[in-house]
C-alpha cells in the first residue's frame, strides 16, 4: 500500500489519498493521471490492467486501487 501511495503522490501530488473516496467522481484524477497510474502499477506489480478494469469503482480511492492490484495479482 505504501508503494501505491508513493506512485499516486508522484503522479498527482496535491490530493488526500488516505481519505478521499471520490478521486474520479470529483475529477481529481483525469484520464492522463489514470493512465500514468496504470502504467506504473503494471510495471511495479507485474500485473496487466485491461480497459474493462478502468472504471470509477476501481480508481475512486487508494483502497479501491489497492484491492484491484491484489485481485489482479491473484489471477
Amino acid at each position, binding site marked *: 500500500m505504501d508503494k501505491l501511495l508513493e506512485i499516486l503522490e508522484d503522479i498527482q501530488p496535491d490530493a488526500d489519498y488516505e481519505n478521499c473516496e471520490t478521486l474520479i467522481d470529483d475529477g481529481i484524477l483525469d484520464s492522463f493521471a489514470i493512465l500514468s497510474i*496504470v502504467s506504473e502499477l503494471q510495471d511495479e506489480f507485474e500485473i496487466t490492467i485491461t480497459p474493462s478494469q478502468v*472504471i470509477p469503482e476501481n480508481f475512486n480511492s487508494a483502497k479501491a486501487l489497492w484491492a484491484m492490484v491484489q485481485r489482479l495479482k491473484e489471477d
Partner: protein
Amino acid sequence: MSLISMKFLLFVIVAAVGYYWIPKKYQWIWLLLFSYIYYVSGGLKVTCFLAFTTITTWFAGMRLEVITQAEQDKTKRKRRKKQILVLTLLLNFGVLAVLKYTNFAITTYNLISGASYRELSLLLPLGISFYTFQSMGYLLDVYWDRTKAEHNLFRFALFVSFFPQILQGPIGRFSRLGEQLYASHRFDLQKAERSLLRILWGYFKKMVIADNAVIFVNAIFGEPERYSGLGIIAVLAYSIQLYCDFSGGMDVVIGIAGLFGIQMDENFKRPYFAISITDFWHRWHITLGTWMKDYVFYPVSLSGWMKHFSKFAKKVFGKQTGRTLPICLANLIVFLVVGIWHGAAWKFIVYGLYNGMIIAFSGLMAPRYRKWKQALHISDNNPGFHLFQILRTFVLVNISWFFDRADDVGTALRMMKYAVTRFDLSQLLTVQIGEASGTAYTLIFLIVIVAGCLVVFLISLLQEHGRDLDGFYDRQHWLVKCMLFAGLFLLLPALGQPSGEAGGFIYAQF
C-alpha cells in the same frame, strides 16, 4: 421531421398524452412505436440501416453472453468473443465509413492522382453516427462484462432508436438509459413543468440566438475577402451559434425525454468557462468525449503495442516523459477520430489534431507547470489566474472554430491572418440581412444576439457558482411561472428565425 416544427410538437404531445394514458407495462412499446414512426417519416430506405445496426448488435450481444456462460476454456472464450466483437464492429463502422467517407476518399484520390472519378450519391441515414456509436458502446460493454446483454430484440431496438435523441444525441449508455426506457413512469407535474421550461429554453437558444448569429456567420465566412476586417466577429458569432445551436438542441432533447420521465445524460456543462482544452472537452459534447475515452482512448493506451512503446519510451526519455508519451500518442489518435467524426474533410482532421496536440503538450508539460506555479506562488484558486485560464482557453477554442467553420484549411488560416492584420469593426454594419432588407435591420439583429447572449451568460454564471435555478423556479408564485412561460413562448416567433437561412440543427447532420 424537424425539431422546430408544429408537426413535431404535435407528434410529441400525442406521444406524451398516450404514454401516460395506456397501461404502464406497454409504455416502452409505445415509445418504440413512436420512435420508428419518427424515423420512418425521414425515409423508409434509411430505416433499413437503423434496423441493420439494431439486429446485428443485438445478435452479437446475445452470442457474447452465451459464450461467456458456456465456454469453459479461458483462451477459447477470449478468442471467440473477440471474433464476434471485431466482426460486428467492422460491419457497423464499415457501413458508417462507406456511407460517410466514400466521397471524401474519392475526392482525395482525385486530388493526389489527378484522376477524375465522379462522387457517388449515397444515402446518409439520419443520426447514423450517434446510433452507431451508442450501439457499439453497448456491444463493448457486453464484451467487457460491464453490462448484461438485452435478450428482447424490441427492447434493444428502443435503446437504439429512442426518438428524442436519435438525431443529435446525447450518446446514451445502456446501463443508465436502458433501465429508464423499459421502466414504467407515472406522470409527475413538477418534472413535466421543468421539462417544458427546458424545451422552451432550448428553443430560445436555438431560434433567438443561434439562428440570428448564423446570418452573420454565413455572410462573413461566405465572403472572407469582402468582410476581411470581421474575422474576429465571425469566429465569435460562430462560437455563439455553435454553442446555442447544439446545447439548445440538447435542452430540447433532454426536455422531451423528461416529459416521458427519462433523464438523459447531460451533454454540456458551460464549456466557455473551461480553464484548459482538456477541461473544455469535459464540458463540451460530454457524451462523445466520455465515449471516446472509454472505448478508444483507454483501449488504445492499454493495448499490447502501446505497452511495448511505453517500455521503449521510458528507457529513452526517462520515467516521467516515457510514461506520458504513449498517453499523448493515444490522445492524438482519439482526436484524429474526433476530427474525422465531425466530417469528411481535411479541415476537420486539422481541427481534431489541433485539439489533440494542445492536450498532449499540456500533458507532457504538466509537471513543469506545477513547478513553475509553485516558484511564482500562483495558486489555482487565485481569481485573476482563474480568469486568465478561462480567457486563454476561449482564445484557443476560437482558433479551432476557424478550422471547423471555414471552407477549407487555407481559408481558415487566411481569415486568422486577416483577423489580426485587417481588423475593422466598421464593416459590421455593412453585413446584409437577407436580399430584400439589405442592411436596414443589421443593428437590430446584433442587439437581439447580444441581449440573448447576456441572458445565457448570466444564467450560466449562476449555474457555474452552484446556484440551484430549478429550486428557485419551484419557489416562484404560479403567476410568475406563467409569465415566464408566456414570455419565452412569445419571444420565439417575435425574435427568432423559424425558417429560411437558419434551417435545422448543425449536429443533426452527423
